[in-house]
């Protein structure tokens, strides 16, 4: 019976928390965003009108409010990687897409990013990738930043892998990356080193063309 009393006294607190989150959700859904006109987007990106229409329909279906906030973004991205934890990588991706750093990805941001990734030149794609890796956007990729990114990628694999994921795997991978990319061995990779090195690597060049036909 004492236990019952304790349980009853705990209930009100939980209820408050629940109502708070409901209120938060209501607030969020009040935010609505309408994208710029179709013509403007057509001019700014390399997609055709029809492609933009298809993209917007998909976007709006999943995010009726017109913007994606980071949590929704993480949710959506995690659905593609059921075995691992995609939230860290999704965070980096979100920052890469959210070019104006306002905390939400609107349709324009989304479509601009996709335009670079799918229809951009190799230079632009590499630029985008560099931007992704450069977490603090200072123009240099340090080993710590790369390690963060690498850990995020390995997190997406999850626990159940073959061969079993060891602790040092991301670090080793970062070492290999730096050996390849850091030409002047100064401990950071600049954009020029990055682009140079990637352009000389056949595998990377080939894989950049992989997703041409995605839309």
């Amino acid at each position: 019976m004492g236990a019952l009393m304790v349980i009853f006294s705990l209930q009100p607190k939980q209820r408050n928390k629940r109502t708070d989150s409901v209120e938060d959700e209501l607030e969020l859904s009040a935010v609505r965003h309408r994208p710029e006109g179709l013509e403007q987007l057509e001019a700014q990106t390399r997609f055709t009108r029809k492609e933009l229409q298809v993209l917007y329909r998909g976007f709006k279906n999943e995010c009726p409010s017109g913007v994606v906030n980071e949590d929704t973004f993480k949710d959506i991205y995690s659905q593609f990687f059921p075995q691992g934890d995609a939230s860290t990588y999704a965070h980096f991706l979100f920052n890469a897409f959210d070019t104006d750093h306002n905390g939400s990805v609107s349709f324009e941001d989304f479509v601009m990013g996709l335009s670079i990734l799918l229809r951009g030149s190799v230079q632009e794609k590499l630029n985008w990738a560099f931007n992704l890796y450069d977490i603090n956007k200072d123009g240099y990729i340090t080993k710590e930043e790369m390690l963060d990114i690498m850990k995020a990628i390995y997190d997406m694999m999850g626990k159940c892998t073959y061969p079993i994921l060891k602790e040092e795997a991301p670090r080793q991978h970062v070492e290999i990356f730096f050996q390849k990319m850091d030409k002047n061995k100064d401990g950071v990779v600049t954009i020029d080193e990055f682009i140079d090195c990637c352009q000389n690597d056949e595998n990377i060049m080939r894989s950049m063309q992989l997703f041409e036909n995605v839309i």
Partner: protein
Amino acid sequence: MAAGVAAWLPFARAAAIGWMPVANCPMPVAPRDHGKRQDELIILNVSGRRFQTWRTTLDRYPDTLLGSSEKEFFYNEETKEYFFDRDPDAFRSILNFYRTGKLHYPRHECISAYDEELAFFGIIPEIIGDCCYEEYKDRKRENAERLMDDQEENKDNKLPNMNFRETMWRAFENPHTSTMALVFYYVTGFFIAISVITNVVETVPCGSTPNQKDVPCGERYTVAFFCMDTACVMIFTVEYLMRLFAAPSRYRFMRSVMSIIDVVAILPYYIGLVMTNNEDVSGAFVTLRVFRVFRIFKFSRHSQGLRILGYTLKSCASELGFLLFSLTMAIIIFATVMFYAEKGSSSSKFTSIPASFWYTIVTMTTLGYGDMVPKTIAGKIFGSICSLSGVLVIALPVPVIVSNFSRIYHQNQRADKRRAQKVQCSEEVEQHLSKTASLLESQHHHLLHCLEKTTAHEFVDEQLYEQNCREGAVQSYPSCSPSLSSQEGPTGTCCTHQARKNPLPDASVPPTCQGALQELSAVHIQCSDQPALSTSRSSLNMKLDDTSRLNCKSGLITTAIISIPTPPAVSPEGDSQPLTSPSMQTIASSNAVKVSTL
């Protein structure tokens, strides 16, 4: 993968470019999207009401009627639309399923009509969303029960060609089918009543003779009672033997509850007959007579209500058990407390904790006999706490059991549904889903494969992972080495028609056997210099990127795959539907069925 999220797959794939500079190995080729056409609106005319939707919306579920080429059968050339002569109201929810990925059950709809519509359009009811699933299952169950009742009524007007045995059995089970059966039914009922009354009256003290105390009737009129008992037992024995003879499955009949009750009802008499002379066991014999009261349970054959009560109790057994357990806990706690509280007082009735159990039970159920009463102040305080809490503890469970019951019941339904979705036990479902390789799925697999290549690790499922951990053997296959020559030998022939590597995921023949031995695909092929162990895939991967399309689809193929206890990777099954047939197809088509690896 939800249909809505499928719209984001292009984005996820584009974002994969972020992995490319980091990867050390070349990436697998993307699945080609041939047959890509501009998205067009198609018109679905359902009994005059026109629905319009995009073609790609319908293509999301290629294993249904609307998503496959089966809808071409309904195409009307003149009006350039697809005409279906079905209920437009039910069609609304079906079309919404394509749009939102969730199937809802409209409450006003009749369950069997809805089921027919689903069956027509090739949608399995198991994917009904959680919001509507309980309602659907409830209605379905009610309907099924009603149908069963109807069937039972119809059963009685049955076939004339039954042999004697079957007639007898039917007469026993449904007494109203023939007059003889009815007579038999009433006679047995009458004798059960007589027997029970006899047992009761036996113990009533009949008038006393002057020189003796009150004597129970049983001892006064021993012969009469004995004769009645004998008669009843005769009838019951004959009845039991007749039922045993008539039963279609004697073994099952003997195990059924009713027949056990019958046996227990008549055994004491026979045992009594055998053992009357032995004085030592007369005590045991007396106990046996108690079992005669079980004859009253024979009434449950005559009463539907009793049977239902029994069934209800049986179905609530776990909740009742839990209630009993929690009551026991409370009793033990309070009994202990009372014992120690009353230890000090002299001439306390609370001689031991078990002795205090009685007090606790009597107090908590608010009976309060008063045969055991606490005398110390502490005892009285705890005693009053005990009785107050007893009120709560006893009064609470009744609605709690009811609500618990309904909640757990529904939870079980949902869990069953989820389990059923994971395991996909029905063959139909397997075949259904394994029919066509969805482009979406193959693109998703390609994406996951790219991730594997980037990190130079492969997805495996939990069991294999644990196996690996246990063995501690991390076979260090260098991820980017050229194909292991040892594996090429027997498998070289198999993939000649495949230009690129052919990871063949697991192949449990019934894909449901997740727990079953993970079988290694026998054939791996590497024609490029990618790692041979490419059977890994994530749970979703049961397909080969393009190769599945090269082979034609046939249902489940039971090609043998060798099971090898050690790793390397075997494709795992995750929580999406395992689709094994494509892999099987390649094996079947390549005819290299029993090749062993390694």
